[in-house]
């Protein structure tokens, strides 16, 4: 029988938590062996790849390495869009790595009832380590299957620590099949998000007011529609990991690229919306004073309900976790804890503000190995924003949201306030919610 050990051991756990006043910038905790909590809402490469309508994913790896991705595909009911080519030790020793992939992909394609729109072919750390000739593989595949689009994709843990991560590479790769077309001045793209931007966002409203349609892979109903993203004159990215993909695509197709990260500072939001307005040649601007006032009102209302209830936030809910903390603190919320393992360079100003104004705010790691034994729970009621905050505090009063949830701009702040009010009012089952992979995707898990 497995023994629950969290909280049961008397040991020094100070390596896994600090305070805003003492935290190192930008990485407060040492990079060591990592703990993987059961909070699995953030999307992984399988979820992301399935956003391309009609795409089929093929992973080339040892059986056990396949485990996580195949379970993801199964959980989201996408087994029919997933295949695996198993690598054995013989393949490594005998140098058959290229032929294995070329022949294996051929077999997979022959077995499918319907030709996929795109094949996302995932090579792994073995291929990286052995220097498998991927250029040759893709050249040969395209020669043998000239009507099939292949996108080079990576499930390579060696790439996690340096350069572009597999996540970022996939957000680049997912748009590689878009081909150069004449650009339309009345169409723009949102690139690299996993979740659609909230319908009420000022950005979407401004586009609509300017007669501009917005394409987003999260809303594309067909592969043909997805391919029309080539025709947009402007690409917007709002999620940090999406930025490289947005810029690469824009350079390739001659589109304009604009990075407007989801943020919480009113000035920054307004500046971004002004930049957007300029990019789309908008004739009018939103009433920013009114938008600010409405956001303030929503925050005021939510804070009245929250009162002095402690609040914990985590980075999986919002990349700009420090910006969120500052927004809430500035509006009277009792933010006591931030769960994050590192901070983006975009958050330096907010980091300094927190250190200067709320130095006692706790900062906890989420992947440090001591987090597996860190006592979980909170004495009393606590509002958690994010799955990891909910899991580590064991608070059933949580906003279940990942990757910013599409909540952009002042409207996003108002929406978040609504979600916080709902969370405080109605507790949720923690385990049932946080263990499901890819929040927003179908999940067949029955707790």
């Amino acid at each position: 029988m497995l023994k629950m050990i969290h909280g049961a051991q008397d040991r020094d756990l100070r390596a896994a938590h600090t305070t805003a006043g003492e935290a190192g910038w930008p990485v407060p905790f040492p990079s060591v062996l990592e703990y993987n909590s059961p909070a699995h809402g953030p999307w992984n490469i399988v979820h992301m790849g399935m956003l391309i309508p009609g795409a089929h994913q093929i992973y080339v790896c040892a059986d056990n390495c396949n485990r996580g991705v195949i379970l993801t595909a199964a959980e989201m009911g996408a087994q029919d869009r997933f295949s695996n080519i198993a690598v054995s030790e013989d393949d490594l020793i005998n140098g058959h790595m290229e032929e294995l992939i070329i022949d294996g992909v051929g077999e997979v394609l022959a077995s499918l009832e319907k030709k996929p729109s795109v094949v996302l072919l995932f090579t792994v750390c073995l291929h990286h380590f052995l220097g498998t000739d991927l250029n040759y593989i893709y050249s040969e595949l395209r020669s043998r299957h000239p009507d099939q689009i292949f996108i080079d994709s990576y499930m390579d843990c060696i790439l996690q620590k340096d350069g572009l991560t597999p996540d970022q590479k996939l957000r680049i790769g997912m748009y590689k099949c878009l081909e150069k077309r004449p650009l339309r001045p009345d169409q723009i793209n949102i690139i690299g998000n996993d979740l659609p931007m909230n319908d009420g966002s000022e950005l979407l409203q401004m586009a609509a007011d300017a007669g501009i349609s917005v394409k987003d892979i999260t809303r594309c109903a067909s592969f043909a529609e997805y391919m029309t993203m080539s025709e947009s004159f402007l690409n917007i990215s709002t999620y940090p990991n999406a930025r490289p993909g947005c810029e690469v695509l824009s350079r390739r197709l001659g589109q304009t690229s604009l990075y407007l990260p989801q943020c919480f500072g009113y000035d920054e939001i307004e500046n971004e919306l002004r930049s957007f307005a300029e990019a789309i040649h908008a004739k009018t601007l939103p009433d920013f004073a009114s938008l600010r006032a409405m956001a303030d009102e929503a925050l005021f209302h939510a804070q009245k309900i929250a009162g002095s209830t402690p609040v914990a936030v985590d980075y999986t809910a919002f990349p700009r976790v420090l910006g969120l903390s500052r927004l809430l603190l500035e509006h009277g919320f009792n933010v006591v804890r931030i769960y994050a393992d590192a901070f983006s360079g975009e958050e330096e100003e907010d980091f300094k503000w927190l250190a200067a104004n709320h130095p006692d705010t706790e900062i906890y790691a989420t992947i440090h190995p001591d987090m597996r034994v860190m006592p979980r729970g909170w004495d009393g009621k606590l509002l958690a924003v994010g799955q990891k905050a909910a899991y580590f505090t064991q608070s059933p009063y949580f906003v279940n949201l990942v990757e910013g949830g599409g909540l952009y701009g002042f409207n996003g702040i108002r929406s978040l306030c609504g979600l916080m009010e709902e969370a405080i009012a109605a507790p949720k089952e923690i385990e049932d919610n946080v263990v499901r992979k890819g929040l927003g995707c179908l999940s067949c898990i029955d707790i």
Partner: protein
Amino acid sequence: MKQIAVYGKGGIGKSTTVSNISAILSMKGLKVMQIGCDPKADSTSLLLDGARIPTVLDLVRERRNDFELSDMVYEGYAGVLCVEAGGPTPGLGCAGRGIIAALDKLKEKGAMEVYKPDLIIYDVLGDVVCGGFSMPMRGGYADQVFIVTSGENMAVHAAANIALAVENFQKRGYAKLGGLILNRRNVRMEEEKVAELAEDIHTRIVGTLDRSDTVTDAELLGKTAVEAYPDSEIAQQYRTLAGTVAQMCGLESA
């Protein structure tokens, strides 16, 4: 830009031969980059008065990605651009993986775009023992492979092994076998044995170098023969060989 890779049994004289060729072609006006693909990192020392330069892998180990091209590309004798890939600590790690990492880093840093060499010569460790050491003969790298050999049995066997690798990769469009370079050791029936090898592996001898104490004397000075003893017979043989290689690459001197 043309690229060639030079393979051959360890100790057969690859680096010496390659360094002399690099120097000669550079003196003729071509921009030449010599990339040592050997963990010993001694390929270019004769172009640098015997000095050793920091290897690409040394830089990666010490500075991760925080270094510039000028930290790994050094100008040697006659303007030859010298690079050493480096390798792991002896007895530890994987040298083949190190070659892959070093060549990837050169590409990532844009070495070819910045320096725009007319000719790149990869001086590669003795045998093709794994995927990493075959990287210089891949698509995107060398167009031709030259193998330095003598009439000694082990050198001949190594040459045959390398030629087999080149042949195996032909269907992938990798480098073609340019030919053999006979670096004489004055063993019995040397000419005949190497000629037989050439026939067996469907190639030819593109150049012959006599065994020469002048080469050893130059090495003691930390120099190539063409630098230390430009009027020597061996220097002239290197010039002939360099001319043949350049012609086979379709290069014309400036």
